[in-house]
């Protein structure tokens, strides 16, 4: 893959800051003027963004194609389903703590297994492990509610849509800042190095395995937070949280948005969430459309929206430097 570098100078930095501030104020004031329907879609988009950004950390930056990223999401959803749905605890912070704990344990085991291999093998094994989780939710029905899933989940503090939207917004901003700092830290830079040339990084004295291992676990934690929020929002944890279609839509978000770009997955999430909701109002063929977009993006638009924006930005910068 072509390496895209983000270089900043004063002008573009100011512009970016400005855009961020505008977006921030739009999102904060959104409940004042938006309809309930749009706000619902934006809530879902923001939740998906968290998952997609963490997926990108793995796929875009570490260069690991995992078909099992959905596991983090599903574990988050089912932890909420079991704790809140069965009335064990309704303490929001306790649930977050337990979710992160469970996710770390499961992803530590899964990453250990999957990272015994590389490349295609890694992708296939993560796919099989995701299907294993899917099977657990279906077959271990005493614990997971089987095909019906777990219901009766109340939102933390029983908040309404608006308050929950702000909860999601806060989680989104925290995740965004955290992932941004991970990417720009030495850890993120090392991951990119490993993506570009694993062998050479090893020769330089890096233990590449441990970096990939940690990247897998960290990205799973963010995904589980997203799954947790989603479960609170829609009030059900179901086997669909682990299935192929959900998994593919997150992958699509990253691909459309642009791999290895910071804001790409966010754009991708909004695009996929809005597109599927509006398309499903008109047609039942949205899975076909999803698949076709998927193939087209991989074949012809590999940089994704975020990637093309970055190219554009670099061009502007060059123009500025010339003057």
């Amino acid at each position, binding site marked *: 893959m072509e390496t895209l570098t983000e270089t900043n100078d004063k002008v573009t930095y100011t512009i970016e800051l400005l855009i961020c501030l505008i977006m921030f104020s739009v999102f904060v004031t959104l409940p004042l003027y938006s309809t309930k329907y749009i706000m619902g879609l934006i809530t879902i988009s923001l939740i998906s963004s968290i998952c997609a950004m963490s997926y990108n950390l793995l796929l875009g930056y570490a*260069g690991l*194609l995992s*078909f099992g990223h959905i596991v983090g999401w599903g574990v988050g959803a089912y932890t909420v389903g079991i704790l809140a749905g069965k009335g064990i605890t309704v303490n929001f912070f306790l649930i977050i703590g337990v979710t992160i704990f469970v996710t770390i344990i499961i992803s530590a085991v899964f990453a250990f*297994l999957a990272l*015994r*291999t590389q*490349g*295609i*093998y890694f*992708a*296939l*094994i993560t*796919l*099989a*492990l995701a*299907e*294993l989780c899917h*099977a*657990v939710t279906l*077959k271990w029905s005493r614990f997971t509610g089987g095909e019906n899933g777990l219901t009766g989940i109340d939102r933390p503090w029983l908040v309404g849509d608006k308050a929950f939207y702000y909860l999601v917004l806060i989680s989104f901003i925290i995740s965004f800042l955290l992932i941004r700092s991970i990417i720009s830290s030495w850890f993120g830079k090392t991951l990119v190095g490993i993506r570009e040339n694993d062998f050479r990084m090893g020769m330089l004295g890096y233990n590449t395995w441990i970096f990939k291992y940690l990247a897998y676990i960290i990205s799973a934690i963010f995904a589980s937070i997203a799954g947790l929020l989603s479960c609170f929002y829609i009030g059900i944890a179901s086997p669909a949280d682990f299935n*192929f*279609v959900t998994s*593919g839509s997150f*992958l699509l978000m990253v*691909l459309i948005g642009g791999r290895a770009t910071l804001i790409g997955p966010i754009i991708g999430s909004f695009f996929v969430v809005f597109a599927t909701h509006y398309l499903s109002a008109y047609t039942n*063929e949205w*899975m*076909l459309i*999803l*698949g*076709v*977009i*998927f*193939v087209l993006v*991989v*074949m012809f638009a*590999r940089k994704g929206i975020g990637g093309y924006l970055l190219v554009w930005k670099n061009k502007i910068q060059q123009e500025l430097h010339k003057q």
Partner: protein
Amino acid sequence: MILQFLNGLSYSVILFLLSSGLCLMFGLMKIVNLAHGSLYMLAGYVGFSVARATDSFALALLVGMACTALISFGMDRCLLRFLYKQDIEQLLVTFGLIYIFENLARNIWKGHTYFVPVPKLLIGSVDLFGTTYSTYRLALILIGFSLAAVLWLLEEKTKIGAIIRAGVDDAEMVEGMGKNVKLIFTLVFVFAGALAGLGGVLGSILTGSFLGVDGMVLILSLIVIVIGGMGSLKGAMVGSLLIGFADVFGKAYFPDVAYFIVYGIMVTVLVIKPTGLMGESE
């Protein structure tokens, strides 16, 4: 016990039909076709429709295989050819195709479950080792083993097999020797598609064709090739037998955990030998 043994064998044959195709593709082109399960599903559905319309099993088998071979041809020529040696992109494209094929099947067959009827010649059962056993399943076992033998002979004893084996080691060199490697890639791809089609029609008699069977057989055959060692035909055979028996015996004797036994085997193999039982060590 004998019954379970034979059931395990016939199930292994279906898995072998799928995983041997995957193996051939991976061995030669380092491609894993994630839409392989979808081909199985489509072939089963097409086979059913043809069998219902014409009442001929042979025709159903032929059309089902031709369909999947054609789809594979299209996939190779229109998509994968342009992604040569880009393994992540190839996986992603075939992953996207899963959705397209599933939607196609949903539109045409409306999500019903259909079974291809057992061919007339093979209806009924035969006496075997003191038990009676379905003639069709017995025939399936025979077909599977003869196919395994044919594949082995093709790969080891014929010129095309030699070219394929050489292509596995060094495709560029083979190209340099004046062999049309691209054509051979396409041939192998089409052949693997036809094998999936064969598996789809024959397997539909046992498993039925339904939405979701694609994912089910895909995961199982992926586990088979991961266990056996990717790209090794011998590995595909060993893996198919292992998973086929584990699944059938598991369902018969440990129904509660049957589904997880295959994953247990995969995990064990991964921990002990990540390259698979028959795979070459890195």
